């Protein structure tokens, strides 16, 4: 299984019927493809829509029905639209149950950096800071390492997205939680040993006696 698919499938298991969910761009967007059909989840697009549906069929796109990247989407039965003040009121006000975001670094206490690399990449934070500050549950979906360097770090060297720690990190190698504010190895990916995870993780990880494998 491709690393991105491992991550997306595992994250999809965190969603529950009735949840209002906001997916970031990149790997998080893939999560929608792995939500079981009997699970009724509301997906929010922060440009003003609840009830985001899949990319419309060829020739069916509408110029005023788009995702936050400006790409055509569809709307599911029961969808609703609203302005940006309402959209971010939902986000900051704790009405969004789960947000899934990409990450550049997550540190040993669960603090996330995902919006800029000083001097290299300064695109702006868009909605990321509000999502991390306001969503009830924040899940980071990212590769465990980039170019051989751990993205789970002792302390973020990149600018933080929020002072609020994330709840869960799902990578292609592991699921990491932060009970009592300390990074803890909760699951390993299929075929990956605890030792392999520890070997490529810069942050110190607490390891319980039993670490189950992800059930995908």
């Amino acid at each position, binding site marked *: 299984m491709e690393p991105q698919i491992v991550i997306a499938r595992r994250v999809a298991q965190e969603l529950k019927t009735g949840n209002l969910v906001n997916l970031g761009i990149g790997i998080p967007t893939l999560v929608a493809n792995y939500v079981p059909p009997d699970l009724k989840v509301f997906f929010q*697009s*922060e*440009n*003003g*829509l609840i009830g985001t549906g899949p990319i419309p069929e060829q020739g069916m796109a*509408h*110029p*005023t*029905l*788009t995702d*936050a*990247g*400006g790409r055509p989407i569809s*709307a599911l039965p029961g969808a609703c*639209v*609203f*302005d*940006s*003040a309402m*959209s*971010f*009121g939902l*986000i*900051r006000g704790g009405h969004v149950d789960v947000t899934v975001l990409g990450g550049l670094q997550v540190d040993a206490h669960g603090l996330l950096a995902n919006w800029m690399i000083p001097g290299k*990449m*300064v*695109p*702006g*934070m*868009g*909605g*990321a*800071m*509000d999502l991390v*500050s*306001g969503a009830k549950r924040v899940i980071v979906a990212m590769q465990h390492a980039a170019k051989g360097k751990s993205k789970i770090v002792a302390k973020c060297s990149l*600018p*933080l*997205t*929020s*002072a*609020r720690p994330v709840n869960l990190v799902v990578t292609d190698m592991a699921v990491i939680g932060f009970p009592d504010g300390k990074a803890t190895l909760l699951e390993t990916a299929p075929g990956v040993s605890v030792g392999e995870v520890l070997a490529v993780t810069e942050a110190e990880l607490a390891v319980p006696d039993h670490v189950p494998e992800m059930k995908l």
Partner: protein
Amino acid sequence: MKAVSVEEAVAMIPPGASVMVGGFMGVGTPERLLDEVVRQKKTGLTLICNDAAIPGKGVGKLFDAALVSKLTATHIGLNPNAQKQMLANQIAVDLVPQGTFVERIRAGGCGLGGVLTPTGVGTLVADGKRQIEVDGKPFLLETALRAQFALVHAFLADYIGNLAYALTSRNFNPVMAMAADTVIVTADNIVPVGVIAPDHVVTPAPLVDYLITNG
């Protein structure tokens, strides 16, 4: 509300004006007004817009023509021209979290001095801002944002200026229509009064100063 041509409307905007433009990645943007701003070469603009769109679309056209000197936005990563102009110090860019951006504009339109938000506490966004505790929780004081002009795009406008929007093209338009001295609107459809039911009017007519007539 006064119905005017797009040329007349844009002629009212002086060079160096502060301008809010509705839209999200060019969706829900008053394209005809922006084309005319480019044609009349309104230089030195202070632009307040969620993003810089992409070259050739929405406010992207203002960067193509190098008309912007100051920008307040939340994300400009998809417009290489805006990025280049920022890195070359041709435009001063203030990047703001999107929820903070819209609340500052909402505050500006609602007579508030600003808002208290938890977003940005403990990050670079907090630099130089007052932090205020309420019930033991830290918040940043984010001040209100207004502009001389708001350029707004609606799906429906009736003859007196009531507005309704379509799907995700609503975004920042109704909030910006509250927060500028002069509000100029383009609409996909200009319709008789009553076509938009009272329950479906999103922006009330008294907020609209100028409606651009069909060309």
